[in-house]
């Protein structure tokens, strides 16, 4: 695992890229490499994080412009090869806009930008992104978003439930998301998108360590 490298994608407007890198390098001793969005050679990274922020100023829709970057075009093959991709907040929005995950993220029901810690139920262990093997089925992670209301049609929701693709649900739904959904995976389990920020919960001194498990699981095969 010494050479395992996580690519952290940087779009114009990303603002959680350094936090993700700090959490991986400083807290978990996992090597990272920043990947500028115009880069399309992913051969020297073993997993990828799409960090939070406001790629392209959230113009048109959150994640809508980022979807057309060379890096996102190259992501299809990366995902098909089974390598792991984690989309956090704006990264989750990009993953839905580009069709790697179903549904869409729209304005919070109360129109507020919500910055808070939330309690989350771990629903599915698909992909091994969350630790639900012991008693602890609930984690606390920070959220910070204005457009985090997960929306999908009823057929998609049924598919998510039937195939155990819902990873996390809010205990007290803050934004009006369908079925309290906070995070989902693809069918293979190697792609996870979530609105909460695991990288902001990796050290007790900043409020908790419930995000460590998810970041650490980037190195799973």
């Amino acid at each position, binding site marked *: 695992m010494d050479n395992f490298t996580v690519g952290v994608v940087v779009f114009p407007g990303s603002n959680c890229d350094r936090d993700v890198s700090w959490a991986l390098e400083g807290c978990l001793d996992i090597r990272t490499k920043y990947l500028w969005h115009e880069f399309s050679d992913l051969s020297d990274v073993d997993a990828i994080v799409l960090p939070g922020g406001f790629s392209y100023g959230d113009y048109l829709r959150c994640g809508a412009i980022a979807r057309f970057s060379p890096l996102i075009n190259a992501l299809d093959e990366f995902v098909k090869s089974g390598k792991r991709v984690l989309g956090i907040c704006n990264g989750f929005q990009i993953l839905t806009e580009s069709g790697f995950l*179903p549904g*869409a993220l*729209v304005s919070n029901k109360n*129109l507020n930008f919500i910055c808070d810690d939330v309690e989350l139920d771990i629903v599915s262990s698909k992909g091994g992104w969350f630790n639900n093997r012991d008693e602890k089925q609930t984690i606390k992670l920070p959220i910070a978003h204005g457009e985090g*209301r997960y929306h999908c049609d009823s057929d998609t929701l049924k598919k998510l439930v039937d195939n155990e693709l819902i990873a996390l649900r809010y205990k007290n739904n803050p934004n009006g998301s369908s079925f309290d959904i906070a995070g989902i995976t693809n069918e293979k389990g190697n792609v996870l998108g979530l609105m909460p920020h695991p990288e902001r919960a990796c050290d007790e001194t900043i409020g908790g360590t419930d995000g460590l498990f998810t970041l650490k699981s980037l190195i799973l095969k």
Partner: protein
Amino acid sequence: MDQFAVKVFVRLRPSVLDPAGEATKSASIKLGAEGIKSLRIGKMIEVKIEGNGENEVREKIDLLCDRLFANTVIEDYEYSLEKL
């Protein structure tokens, strides 16, 4: 080559809650406007585009609407086209 002016309207699907529309409806009522039954906010995109005839331009606009201007998971679109 012909030039066309295209107006694309993008709207949230009826099944998607529009909190900005609801807030604006509430302000409209506070302003004293009566009888508002529904208020929803969409986008209008103006494009000037060249092409060999209307059919070719429509193909281009359909692609743009479907892949970029609207996210068809949550939005519907329609457009009008005028030859310049």
